[in-house]
């Protein structure tokens, strides 16, 4: 228990000092134009990325310096880079962080440059992600890079043992099946809801044909579609179909069959294949269940952006254009397992020959990005989870919890 309050104060001072210093430095202190391009890649795929860009480096003669930024260090890294004024040239931005980065003024508006780079046009990318769809305050600040979605994972063997022939295709079916599976006994469940998964209730709302943003661009949870989603979310808990402990491990739960159905991303398929190869053929992925309107899922993933005061904007955009080519994105899938965003890559036959990929690709065609509200993870998303989890875990009064959610998120705008 060290003095964290003091640490916070110290950080504030360092930030303040950084400001003072950057005030002097940002005028003339930029790197020379011919220096290497600095690229921030999230996670631990830096080495793979160097391999990916090697052909471009050779062709263009521009060196690329790759910096791997760990996912959970992004906020701190951003804060220091903004405060000191010295960031990378190109950076990967997770869609849930896009708004925060753009609001901080860290990303360069690309609207004027796009005409010179036809490869970056919105129509080259999956629907609902490029151009206007991921614009912040009317400005295009990023180019789609990798995509990620949520699909339904089911243990077909466990389902079959309990008389369920096929994975559920509607939420109603899923709830009934989950109840059947949970009835297998003490400590057995039918479905798993991660307690940190704030997009899930939004996906449920979408599948009922609703949205959490009203026509004026304000966050609005007070809709019949969201209320239906809440019924589903709380109903799964009320049925006893979902584990209530926050330390439940989804991969372990799925492999052991304790939670034989859950919604997750492609990374879970890799985890299962790696840690339980003996289950091959006993599980499958399908598109997410349908609500009263559609089977829409979440479009997650990352975009690429140019740092606001990069001195090598042209070279940066050339690199991004190279990374947007379908061949590059398929190569990236091959070496790093992340799904492409370019339409041509997503329709590539060889790519689609993998049955898992075919499902992901089908789901990506009906997937949406989370609304770009300021600070989803720490703000609206956190409030949403607090409200729902307080009902299902603490037995809080449903109306009171939802009223408090409406009050806290009222007036937050995506514009």
């Amino acid at each position, binding site marked *: 228990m*060290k003095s964290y309050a003091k640490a916070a*104060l110290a950080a504030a001072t360092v930030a303040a000092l950084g400001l003072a210093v950057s005030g002097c430095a940002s005028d003339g202190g930029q790197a020379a134009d011919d220096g290497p391009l600095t690229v921030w890649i999230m996670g631990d795929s830096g080495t793979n990325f160097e391999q990916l860009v090697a052909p471009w480096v050779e062709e263009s003669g521009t060196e690329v310096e790759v910096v791997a930024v760990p996912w959970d260090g992004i906020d701190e890294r951003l804060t220091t880079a903004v405060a000191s004024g010295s960031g990378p040239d190109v950076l990967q931005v997770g869609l849930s962080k896009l708004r925060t980065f753009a609001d901080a003024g860290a990303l360069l508006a690309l609207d004027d440059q796009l005409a010179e780079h036809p490869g970056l046009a919105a129509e080259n990318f999956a629907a609902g992600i490029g151009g206007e769809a991921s614009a912040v305050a009317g400005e295009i600040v990023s180019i789609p890079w990798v995509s990620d979605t949520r699909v339904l994972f089911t243990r077909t063997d466990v389902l079959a043992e309990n008389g369920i022939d096929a994975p559920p295709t509607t939420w109603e079916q899923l709830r009934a099946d989950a109840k059947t599976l949970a009835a297998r006994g003490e400590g057995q469940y039918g479905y798993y809801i991660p307690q940190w998964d704030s997009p899930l209730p939004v996906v449920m709302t979408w599948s009922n044909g609703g949205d959490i943003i009203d026509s004026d661009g304000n966050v609005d949870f007070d809709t019949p579609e969201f209320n239906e989603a809440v019924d589903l979310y709380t109903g799964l808990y009320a049925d006893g179909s979902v584990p209530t402990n926050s330390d439940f491990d989804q991969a372990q739960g799925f492999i052991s069959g304790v939670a034989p159905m859950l919604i997750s991303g492609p990374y879970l398929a890799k985890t299962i294949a790696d840690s339980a190869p003996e289950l091959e053929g006993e599980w499958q992925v399908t598109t997410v269940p349908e609500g009263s309107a559609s089977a829409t899922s979440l479009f997650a993933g990352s975009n690429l952006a140019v740092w606001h005061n990069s001195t090598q904007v042209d070279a940066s955009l050339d690199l991004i254009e190279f990374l947007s080519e379908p061949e590059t994105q398929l190569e990236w899938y091959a070496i790093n397992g992340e799904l492409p965003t370019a339409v041509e890559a997503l329709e590539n036959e060889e790519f689609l020959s993998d049955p898992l990929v075919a499902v992901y690709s089908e789901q990506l065609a009906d997937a949406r990005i989370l609304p770009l509200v300021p600070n989803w993870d720490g703000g609206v998303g956190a409030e949403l989870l607090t409200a729902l989890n307080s009902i299902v875990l603490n037995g809080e009064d449903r109306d009171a919890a939802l009223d408090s959610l409406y009050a806290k998120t009222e007036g937050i705008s995506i514009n």
Partner: protein
Amino acid sequence: MRTLKLTPYVFVTPAMLLLIAFGVLPLVVALAVSFTDMDISGLANWGNVGFAGLENYERLFTDPDFWQAFGNTFFFAVIGVPAIVGASLAVALLLARSDSRFYRALRSFYFIPAITGIVAISLVWAYLYNTQFGLFNWLLSLVGVPPVQWLSDPLIAKFSVAFVAIWRGTGLNIIIFLAALQGVPKEYTEAAALDGASTWRTTRSIVIPLLRFAIFFVTVTTIISWLQFFDEPFVLTDGGPLGATTSMSIFLYKEGFRLNQFGYASAGSVVLFVIIALITALQLRLRRPDVEY
């Protein structure tokens, strides 16, 4: 004519400079920032920082999350301070009874938690507490007790997190008490033995009163550290479930570094500083002057 005595100032300067740079200045900056609406766009450009007056403080005192964190912090302090002071004093008194090899080994044993990295501690304890695969629930299952949600139940999680902090916090204080016990003159205990006092009576009436300063020191530092409670809930529960283990420091960290509300977080840190300063000043005031033996 008297010459100006520079020497003491020369000796004091390095420490003073460090204290001003890393202690006083951040405090002043935080105080200044707490009156603004500084956020991340303000970091990028001073022009986006506006004067907010007392707005941050008004918001703080009407924020239910702040009051929850405030209540949690005092809950932790009320459990943790007596537990740490009591446990470390008791262990130190027992360890001081002998100087054999076994007892010396025990001393290092009790000190191990204090020098183990918090990340390793959190990994091990998260496994011990795990609802499905944890050792505790496995042991309970042997005697037919249903699984306990150590870190998922809002009330139990408070105790689970506090217990790890108590386990980790006693080591250093045991060393402080052991050192203080060395300073208890043998003559007093021998005199008491000659008068026929029992061991318990000697401990209660002679040893513990002589340890008064050590007890005071340990109490003050322990209270301060519990008011700044951060590490254990941060690594074990991240303040959850539903804010049940969010201490004031975690609340400030989240507001400042996850929500980028530097002005608001600074206001909170000023409030926390004032609370700690007041409590410490009160303790110093209440402390009775040492009795000379």
